């Protein structure tokens, strides 16, 4: 059996490599011609065989050039990374052929055949995506139903936020503390007041009109700021030696972690008003914020608990031996170390929070995904679902990918410090 198969060897390196490369070239040529010029050179073969012909020819070619320690650096690199066995050779070919076959149509749809110019659906004459849809609705996707004339308020609130966050990187350490306090406690109130209005001559805009991407940011930011301290106390409560506090915390955490967010939102929409005195009306957005905050606080608590558990017992004992009480021990010694340990976990929770915000559609608040849903049902823009979701997906992807990259960097930076 072994004699039938030619074993590529170093002695005839040039001939093996030449013949192998030729076969690989033929297989690629066949696929390229098939994809771009609609030519089929292997049409004379039975249909199944013709379909797999490039794969078979390519695999044989890759088999022939699989020569270990050939002395040729490029060849060795190819063999190690793409061609270490027959199985890997086939996988390599499948991936490359799939890329050749499917990337061009996707690119064509996305960019080359897409329509960018115009203002109505009828302007989309090309076969590709109709980005006119996104262009026309862009304002709504970002600001929701917020009145056009008042949108500068949202803009300035966010510019202020970015300026403050940006400044926090440059100010001296002494002032950083105050900036952070301002950012966490004063800014949210200013920002909220600016966007909701009602005072200082600003027109009141009800929360039902808020929406789009800005609402995604508002909900995530507030939920994060609020859920962090609650989660911290829950985590401490769960590790407390006092049974009543411990069991209350455990019950609270496990209750929220055991149910889906959507039922919690349903609860905030239909069950929560039943628990309040008759006639009390709590704003929809505030109810949603409470629901998301409590939900995420339970997850945050578990993340922080992980950090608390990871600290060596010696830290607690050392703090106690200095005569520190429970709160001083935790706030001066334990939490600063534990929180540093759980930064990646906190970032992951925040990421999950951002990805969960579209769910607020169940109470009728429409952020980006909800606005796309609304826009695609507009009679003038039917059949634009694909464009809308691809756009929304891309926006969310950029936000989440950047955040996960940032948290990975942070993790790496902190791990070298230790």
């Amino acid at each position, binding site marked *: 059996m072994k004699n039938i198969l030619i074993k590529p060897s170093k002695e005839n390196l040039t001939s093996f490599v030449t013949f192998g490369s030729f076969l690989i070239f033929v297989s690629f040529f066949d696929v390229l011609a098939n994809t771009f010029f609609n030519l089929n050179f292997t049409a004379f073969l039975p249909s199944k065989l013709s379909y797999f012909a490039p794969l078979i020819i390519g695999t044989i070619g890759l088999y022939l050039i699989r020569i270990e320690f050939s002395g040729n650096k490029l060849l060795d690199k190819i063999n190690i990374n793409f061609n270490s066995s027959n199985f890997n050779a086939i*996988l*390599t070919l499948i991936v490359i052929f799939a890329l050749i076959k499917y990337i061009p149509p996707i690119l064509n749809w996305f960019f080359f055949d897409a329509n960018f110019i115009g203002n109505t659906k009828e302007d989309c004459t090309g076969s590709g995506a109709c980005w006119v849809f996104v262009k026309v609705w862009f304002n709504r996707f970002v600001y929701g139903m917020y009145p056009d004339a008042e949108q500068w308020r949202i803009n300035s609130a966010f510019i202020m936020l970015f300026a403050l966050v940006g400044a926090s990187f440059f100010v001296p350490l002494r002032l950083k503390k105050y900036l952070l306090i301002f950012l966490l406690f004063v800014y949210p109130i200013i920002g909220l007041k600016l966007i909701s209005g009602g005072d200082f001559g600003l027109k009141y805009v009800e929360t039902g009109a808020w929406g789009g991407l800005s609402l995604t940011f508002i909900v995530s930011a507030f939920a994060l700021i609020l859920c962090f301290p609650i989660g911290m106390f829950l985590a401490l409560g769960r590790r407390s030696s006092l049974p009543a506090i411990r069991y209350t915390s455990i019950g609270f955490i496990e209750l929220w972690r*055991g149910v889906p967010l959507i*039922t919690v939102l349903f609860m905030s929409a239909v069950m929560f008003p039943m628990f309040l005195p*008759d006639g009390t009306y709590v704003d929809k957005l505030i109810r949603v914020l409470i629901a998301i905050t409590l939900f995420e606080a339970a997850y945050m608590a578990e993340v922080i608990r992980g950090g608390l558990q990871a600290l060596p017992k010696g830290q607690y004992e050392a703090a106690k031996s200095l005569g520190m009480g429970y709160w001083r021990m935790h706030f001066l010694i334990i939490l600063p170390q534990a929180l540093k340990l759980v930064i990646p976990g906190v970032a992951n929770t925040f990421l999950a929070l951002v990805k969960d915000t579209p769910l607020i559609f169940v109470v009728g608040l429409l952020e980006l*995904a909800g606005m796309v849903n609304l826009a695609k049902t507009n009679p003038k823009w039917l059949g634009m679902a694909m464009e809308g979701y691809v756009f929304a997906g891309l926006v969310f992807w950029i936000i989440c990918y950047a955040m996960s990259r940032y948290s990975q960097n942070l993790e790496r930076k902190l791990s070298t410090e230790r």
Partner: protein
Amino acid sequence: MNLKNFKIDLSNKNKDLIPQVLTVFLLVLVIIYFTINAQDNMGNRGISFGFGFLSQESSFDITFSLIDYDGSDSYARAFLVGLLNTILVSSIGIFFATLLGVTVGIGRLSQNYLIAKAAEWYVEIFRNIPLILQIFFWYFAALRALPLTVDSINFYDISFLNVKGWYVPRFIWTNFSIFFYSIIVAIITIVFFTKYARKQRDEFGKQLPTFYVSFGLIIGLPLLTFLFGGVRLSFEIPELEQLSTTVYVYKGGVSIIPELISLALALSMYTATFIAENVRAGILGVNKGQKEAAASIGLTKGQILKLVVMPQALRIIIPPTTNQYLNLTKNSSLAAAIAYPDIVLVFAGTALMQTGRAIEIISITMLTYLSLSLSISIFMNWYNKKIAIKEK
């Protein structure tokens, strides 16, 4: 009594007691406040707290049900339909997420640069897009692009995919119970045989071909029932029927609705990314020395993977994967967004709108999810304990 020596007793015991009493007191206060308000509100609306409504006639239809159901059935049965649909989509999702996740996780560690990169990008793309958007994408964009009923995509004349769903053959069994018992018998035999084989190995050093015997049993015994037990299996293949000049439907077979397809697709593709990361971390977490040690005592590559690497990797993989299974089950509630009749849509949606019993229905729904979550985590904890390191 000398007042100078009087001190409030702040010994450790009391110091511990005060915050606890305070917590319990506050908790009770909040609960009482909510209960009074709830009673007031329900009194105003003329409803009283109770679960009697569950036996009332539901009078709404459900598009997809695993058990017989129509509008004349009770709310309790509607709840059961929703629960079964939730369990169905979660099980399908868990199955495919595991399959895909393990494949991609191993792919990320492949020597092949292209495979490793492809797996990495798969994870990066699908992990960072909100699940709800993925569900919307599959349901409203991708599956809506499928052909109409009349020119369905044909899979070998037995199964058809079109915009109305996926039509697959229905299995029609005769004497199914015999077939079913044969599988149970096969499983029991395998368990005993594995025990016997282990004993043989431990006592006499004999290696029995456990895998082949088990494989033969689980395939062979059910096959034998076809020959001798009178078990018959036939298929009801869906057929295209023309109702009027333009209206076509498929009759017969099983129709898998697009809601189920898109939900299962999105759930498994999204969760698979997390499982892939767990698998990768698990395999990377096994010490290199372990593999080298195993190789040095002469185990083959397959044996190393099966006997040395996997048992240790599984210990790292299982706890976070359990969490992912739980997440998938909870995420299946997003079904409500595309009107797949799961427990949230049927019960917390339609039934709640009809009866207005918010407190009862939301509590039942939440309790159901809590018990689903608890049962999965209990099972996985049991499994985790079984494979944990037995420290002496």
